[in-house]
């Protein structure tokens, strides 16, 4: 599968190491990705990495948020408007909003995990009447690491209850401090009618999902987004295996009822 060529239409720095790129196709675009799905982004001559879609844009544009942690992601984060990027995809499973219809939707994000959740949140807010409460819990390492900070107020205005916490505050921070997992209990008011989407570092997802289950939310109503090494994105290279799952095909969004037994196994 050859990469489809896109150019950077816009570049937004989200934090010191995270950038959101808006990509515009210069040839036949890929299928529109659904919330939760990812693409393989290619930086010419450097390499290719799996990146979740983080928003919706006009027409056939893609919105993807990248954190610079290696050669390829650094190259992508350094891309300027007009630079050409290769895109393959979309791949993977989606955040099933149908799970939350007529119920409370709880979205729990840790760090850069807010990026893959953002399209699901935006889709839910766009059909606000379809859900009861929409609650967003966001945790970040520090105020500087908070993604989409400017949008939080907008989301509140559109009918989401938003709580933000940081692990480590700075002098100007006036909000909450502590791990996002502490908010779980208080965020669930009707466990039998709650669906939860959780994304962040694996340990955070495990603790949050566990707390949700303890609070009475059914495991089948909790979705997590899992990650493993991906090279092809198309269920051919074998790298993204997690026990019986091939995460590029059976994930990254996985039902917690399926993920829990796998998460419990070390070095699986």
């Amino acid at each position, binding site marked *: 599968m050859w990469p489809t060529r896109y150019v950077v239409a816009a570049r937004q720095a989200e934090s010191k190491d995270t950038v959101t790129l808006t990509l515009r196709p210069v040839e036949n675009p890929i299928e529109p990705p659904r919330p939760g799905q990812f693409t393989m982004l290619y930086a010419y001559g450097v390499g290719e990495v799996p990146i979740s879609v983080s928003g919706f844009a006009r027409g056939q544009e893609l919105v993807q948020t990248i954190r610079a942690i290696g050669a390829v992601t650094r190259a992508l984060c350094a891309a300027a408007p007009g630079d050409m990027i290769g895109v393959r995809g979309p791949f993977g499973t989606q955040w099933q909003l149908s799970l939350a219809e007529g119920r409370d939707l709880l979205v729990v994000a840790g760090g850069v995990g807010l990026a893959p959740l953002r399209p699901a949140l935006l889709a839910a807010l766009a059909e606000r009447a379809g859900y009861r409460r929409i609650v967003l819990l966001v945790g970040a390492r520090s105020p500087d690491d908070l993604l989409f900070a400017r949008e939080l107020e907008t989301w509140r205005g559109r009918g989401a209850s938003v709580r933000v916490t940081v692990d480590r505050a700075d002098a100007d921070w006036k909000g909450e401090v502590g791990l996002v997992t502490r908010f779980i209990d208080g965020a669930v008011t009707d466990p039998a009618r709650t669906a939860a989407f959780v994304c962040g570092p694996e340990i955070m997802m495990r603790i949050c999902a566990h707390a949700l289950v303890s609070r009475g939310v059914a495991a089948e109503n909790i979705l997590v987004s899992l990650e493993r*090494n991906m090279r092809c994105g198309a269920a051919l290279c074998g790298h993204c295996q997690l026990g019986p799952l091939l995460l590029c095909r059976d994930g990254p969004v996985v039902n917690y009822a399926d993920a829990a037994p796998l998460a419990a196994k070390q070095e699986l």
Partner: protein
Amino acid sequence: MDATTTTPTSRLIDTRGLEDLYDALVEEGYRVIGPTVQDDAIVLRELSSAQELPFGWGVRLQPAGYRLRRRDDTAAFGHSAGPQSWKRFLHPPRERLWSATRTADGFELSGDRADDEPPRYAFLGVRPCDLRAIAIQDRVLAHPGSRYAARRAGVFIIAVNCTEPGETCFCASMGTGPGVRDPGHDLALTELVDDGGHRFLVEVGSQQGLDMLWQVRSKRAGDATVQQARSAVEAAAGRMGRQMQADGLRGLMADSHQAARWDDVAARCLSCGNCTMACPTCFCTTIEDTTDLTGDHAERWQHWDSCFDLDFSYLAGGSVRSTPKSRYRQWLTHKLGTWHDQFGESGCVGCGRCIVWCPTGIDLTEEVRALRTERAQRSGPWERS
């Protein structure tokens, strides 16, 4: 051959017939790949004549051991699985996916014409275990429009029933042999070498196989010969070098994540990955993006990879499977267990190559036995496992 005779489903050919078959394949534009002796092993290579087959050569196999030996007859297929499998032709070790050139606007992609046109292979001498392995890889890799699918579509397969299993073979317990059990072959041979001469029973597996058989000097196969061939294959099933207790393997693998046995294997496993290279179903690959020194020309290559590689499971911050123990466990539990979940069947065909080509002689049939024993002990006689 008389064209008015009814469709022959089994005929008899001798070694001249084998040469006719070779010539007919070449005439049809096939590149004939088959076993041949090279570098003290029986490897798979393009043959320039049927005489290059390993007539009179056998092998002596054991964990961590492979030796050629001279047979006391002239059998061409009297040997079992060598270090390679047919996957090196259908799923090549290195393959360029595309090239790219830097342009004013960014870059342009192109494919090499030669890369895109699949070669037409004829595989001469596919054992039933390897035939199943090809079918297993088809399930994983033959996505519509893929290069694998294109290579696969053009292959002419001449299977060979096994009458002489090797010391490390266990196809019978995996249900893949010693006789051909799968469709997808064009012709199937059973070799007979005795006072009656050196001959091959040929059974037709497809219309293409039948068409090819018309080009070959052959005789009608008498009932006695057909029976002799069948008996030889049946007898082979009872002479397997090893056995795998195959039922409930998926459950056993799923139950064994915490087994102490893995520490035992880890003390012996070098994480060298030989098993994954030799295994006919292992399919993992990695992608490599490269450029030339100027950066104006880029290429993407795909090549074989192994789950024993430390890098295989790398995520930001480290590898998920950082211990050799976890990597051996991944390989075996995938091959015998989660392959069922992912692809609906076992990944193991019982060819025994991993046993032979492991430098420390790890034998998966023995590992499975040990895991079963450990699970039974864990559960105790009064608990369900």
